[in-house]
């Protein structure tokens, strides 16, 4: 993990260091077990086809976990995730690269905390945003 980032180090427009993932079908099965989501469209091709999908798809909440990981990697041990919102815009398929990205949209002090808001999204190999969302974090201050 990188060294601790402080509130004063962050400016609106800064990018969050990106996180690249390559979810495999194995990882989808691991997520099914680790998260308790056993919906068949994530590991059974036939079930996926019956649901009108071209094949098994990556769990939305796994993409949310990836986006959260990108941000917790960035904010270090002293940073705290306060809020998270996500919306799924498109399907992602296993064995395709998924890039998590983010950008700082606001910073302010509230209730004694130094808050930073980021827009976050996942991008597929074609550069399309397949998940969009926002995270609000509290960072330590140097003051």
């Amino acid at each position: 993990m990188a060294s601790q980032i402080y509130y004063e180090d962050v400016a609106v427009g800064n990018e969050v260091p990106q996180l690249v993932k390559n979810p495999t079908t194995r990882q989808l099965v691991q997520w099914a077990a680790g998260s308790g989501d056993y919906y068949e469209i994530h590991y059974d091709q036939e079930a996926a086809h019956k649901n009108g999908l071209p094949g098994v798809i990556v769990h939305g909440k796994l993409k949310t976990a990836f986006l959260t990981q990108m941000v917790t990697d960035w904010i270090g041990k002293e940073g705290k995730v306060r809020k998270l919102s996500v919306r799924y815009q498109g399907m992602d398929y296993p064995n395709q690269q998924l890039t998590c990205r983010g950008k700082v949209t606001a910073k302010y002090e509230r209730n004694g905390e130094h808050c930073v808001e980021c827009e976050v999204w996942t991008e597929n190999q074609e550069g399309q945003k397949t998940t969009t969302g926002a995270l609000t974090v509290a960072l330590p201050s140097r003051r």
Partner: protein
Amino acid sequence: MLDTATRRLTLAQQSILTDEIRREIGYQTEPIIIEVDKTLLRLFTQAVGDINPLWTDDAEARKGPYGGIIAPPSLLCSSMATSYNLPYAHIPALQPMRRLDGGGEWEFYRPIRLGDTITATASLHDMTEKRGRLGPMVIVTSEITWHNQRQALVARAYTTAIRY
């Protein structure tokens, strides 16, 4: 038993959300207990591929602000706390429909520490019906709250499921 095509046609013609079904808004599930132990955290963090020392490394986490391992916030984005106890699983009209995860919003108030016992409660917050390309679509919002063993509110979420 109707075959799928007939059922889909029937669904396409009807409104799903009758007054009877709307009365289910507010329905609350039996709480689910989540014991946050190392096995659970290992399964979860390995599934994500997240090796942050705060959730994986005793010695490193001990030096951090919590004095020990905590759970990643995304643990509460997993379905574990809700999927086998959805607050609309008892509504037969929604069950033949296909489903998609529509996302959600989470607010985190306190860390979850290794060894905590978390109680999750879900309630049916809202249901709205829209007409999609494949017929009617029901958007179901659940409110989920998590409390720790000291009855302190840990997090709250509003999650959306799309039934179509």
